[in-house]
């Protein structure tokens, strides 16, 4: 390993300091993020304003100020426009740092969700650009399920829908964040079932998500275990169906479906035994 020149060392230390700054919220901003996490937008605004007085250049604080505008109960076009302007400033100053990437993601969310006149194609383009430029970045990973639902739940002819399915399937191996992988898989699987009744393509995606143990919501786990069992039955995999039904009964023994599932499980076991 070659010796570091003093200039290089200084640069390395500066980069390390910058990285550390990006990784953690500024001390003053922490109160603002805490309030924002609790859906207290007005209190968050006050906390970010105080942090801004102490450190007006902090991009973390400026991002917080912009996002607090999106969380206010008065969801007005003026608030969205002001939030968009602040996010645009952050992105223009530096599109590649943490705050800049967050700003890019939230500008797409304004296009897709917050705006009273959503611009779906623009949101799709923004998510695609984010995923292309920074595939492993947190915000790109966050964008993947959003892009997936925009592509699949659209009124397009079957060939175009299949082309979009292929785009999403190509995206899956690039997803490194467990939550992005889980949700992109499940949005795709649910679309296969709801829009095509396609158990063959849905089942492996659901099975993977269940095997990874990444489903945290009990109501969703309830629905997915039933769906996995039903799809397995349709696909002629009775042993796998029985496993999912058994797991359902372990998790939800008092559910309104439990009695019927016990009956189905009995049938599957009888068939397996005969």
């Amino acid at each position: 390993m070659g010796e570091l020149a003093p200039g290089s060392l200084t640069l390395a230390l500066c980069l390390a300091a910058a990285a550390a700054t990006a990784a953690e919220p500024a001390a003053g901003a922490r109160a603002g993020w805490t309030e924002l996490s609790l859906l207290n937008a007005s209190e968050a605004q006050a906390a970010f304003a105080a942090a801004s007085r102490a450190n007006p250049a902090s991009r973390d604080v400026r991002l917080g100020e912009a996002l607090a505008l999106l969380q206010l109960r008065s969801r007005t076009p003026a608030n969205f426009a002001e939030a968009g302007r602040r996010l645009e400033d952050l992105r223009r100053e530096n599109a590649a740092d943490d705050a800049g990437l967050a700003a890019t993601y939230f500008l797409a969310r304004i296009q897709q969700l917050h705006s009273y006149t959503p611009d779906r194609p623009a949101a799709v383009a923004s998510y695609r650009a984010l995923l292309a430029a920074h595939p492993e970045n947190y915000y790109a990973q966050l964008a993947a399920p959003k892009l997936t639902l925009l592509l699949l739940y659209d009124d397009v002819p079957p060939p175009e829908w299949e082309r979009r399915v292929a785009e999403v399937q190509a995206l899956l191996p690039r997803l490194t964040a467990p939550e992005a992988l889980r949700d992109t898989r499940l949005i795709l699987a649910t679309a296969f079932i709801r829009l095509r009744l396609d158990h063959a393509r849905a089942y492996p995606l659901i099975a993977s998500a269940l095997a990874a143990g990444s489903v945290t919501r009990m109501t969703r786990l309830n629905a997915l275990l039933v769906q996995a069992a039903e799809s397995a039955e349709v696909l002629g995999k009775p042993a796998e169906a029985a496993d999912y039904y058994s797991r359902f009964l372990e998790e939800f023994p008092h559910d309104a479906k439990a009695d019927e599932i016990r009956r189905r499980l009995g049938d599957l076991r009888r068939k397996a035994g005969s």
Partner: protein
Amino acid sequence: MKRLFTLRHLGFALLVVAFAVASWRLTWRSVRDAGPGHVTLRFAHWQLEGGIREAFDAIARDYETLHPGVHIEQMLIPVGIYRSWGTSHVIGGAAPDLVEIGQGMGGPEVYSYFHPLTEELNQPNPYNAGTPLAGVPWRKTYTDSLEGVYNRAAFDYYGASVFAATIRIFYNLDLLREITGHTEPPRTFEEFQALGRQVRDFAGRTGRPVTPLVCSYGITLMDDLFRSQIQRLATEMNPGVRFPPDLTDPTELYLGYLNRRWSLDHPGFRGAAELMHQMGREMPPGFMQLKREQAVFYFAQGRALMLMGWSSDATGLMRQVAFPVRAFRNPLPAPGPAGFGANMLGPNSEGALATFGALGIPRSSPHPEVALDFLRFLTSQPEDRKFARISGSLPVITGIEPEGFAKDMMPDGRGFPSGPTFTLGETGRVMQNHLHLLFGPEGSSDAFLRALGRDLAASMRSDLANGTHQIRRMIAVNDTSIEAMHRLLRGENPGTVLPRKYQGLVETSNEQEANAYYVELRLKQAQRQP
């Protein structure tokens, strides 16, 4: 003159005494509360049913014995004013230590003004030590794992439930014996109708004004019958699985109707209307307008053989009548190849006992630690057993065998899930508006369905559009909360709750957002239908 003088003085003296007593009570309470180490814990609720107050008092005295420095008082707030009372006190920072959440309180007034209890509920309840529930997370000790009180807007739990209820038909045992010569209640809908005929014959023969059934909550209680009939239809409309959607989720049924996959001529929907019509025939004219007190009065006077109500009404009911009372579950048609039974895939399962009436701790509570400790005590297995025994209500904690009358109130988990309810939102209002055509003197299921057909599609569209609007709004707000959590998680000591909450929020947002887009797509496709 002298007499008038004396009366005036007597009145004045009474006023002085009343003032003195009130002042003394106020002063005593202030002095007691201000005493070193003394805590007065107050909790508010709206459960005025018989037995509840006594049960709360008994548990409170147990707790006081265990914790001599603590005094507990309950505040009973009438249902009619509960929402305004609760909201103003909670937001104004003047709420008691524990407040029952519900009756319209469920949005920002909860997640902004109550302490989240998710972390505590994921820990064992220390008052379950020495019971089979020792070491079990508090939330999992509930019959429904507290699913019923999970706040889906904030992805947190803000309270621990104390109540659970089922729908049951109470009957006058003596009158049943007098009319039929036996005491066995009907088990099927056909037997129920036969009993109705016997009651009418009895009334005609004896001249006694007895009606078979009375109820006070109208359509809500008959919803069970309605949902039994759309069991098969709802399952057919639910893509990819052989189960109907959840009880409160009619989305797929609405989308199916709007996309012309079923109509009001569907045997299931016709059966639902006809079954309710036939049930209505067992009740007195104008039953939809009856208030609870009026219905109980009918029953207590022996003018109705049966009363349909909530299990939580049982204790109060027993105190008001002079005859033995028993209860049975709503009799439903049996599944079969023809008639009502053909619309069913199995008897309606009641599933797990859903809990409600969570007591939460407002952020303004003067004694949050004591409030939490009392809440744990109240919902421990031994104390819930005692609460259920005294109040006659259903136990909310697992592993408690109901005693006596409560045995007949426990949910029946056998069978198949029912279809979703049509009582919610604009569609529920439209259904309600046309019920006079079903239950009126000249009412029929045909007249009801004809009128319903004019309004149903618009109401379904409105409910679906409103639902997606609400979801988008919730997701928009939570988007920024997710970002805030992400940043806090990168800091030091994020704890154990935040990572779980973050994961749950991301997962739910993506799932709900996909649902909203799906509904919009299917609504768009429905517009193209001829």
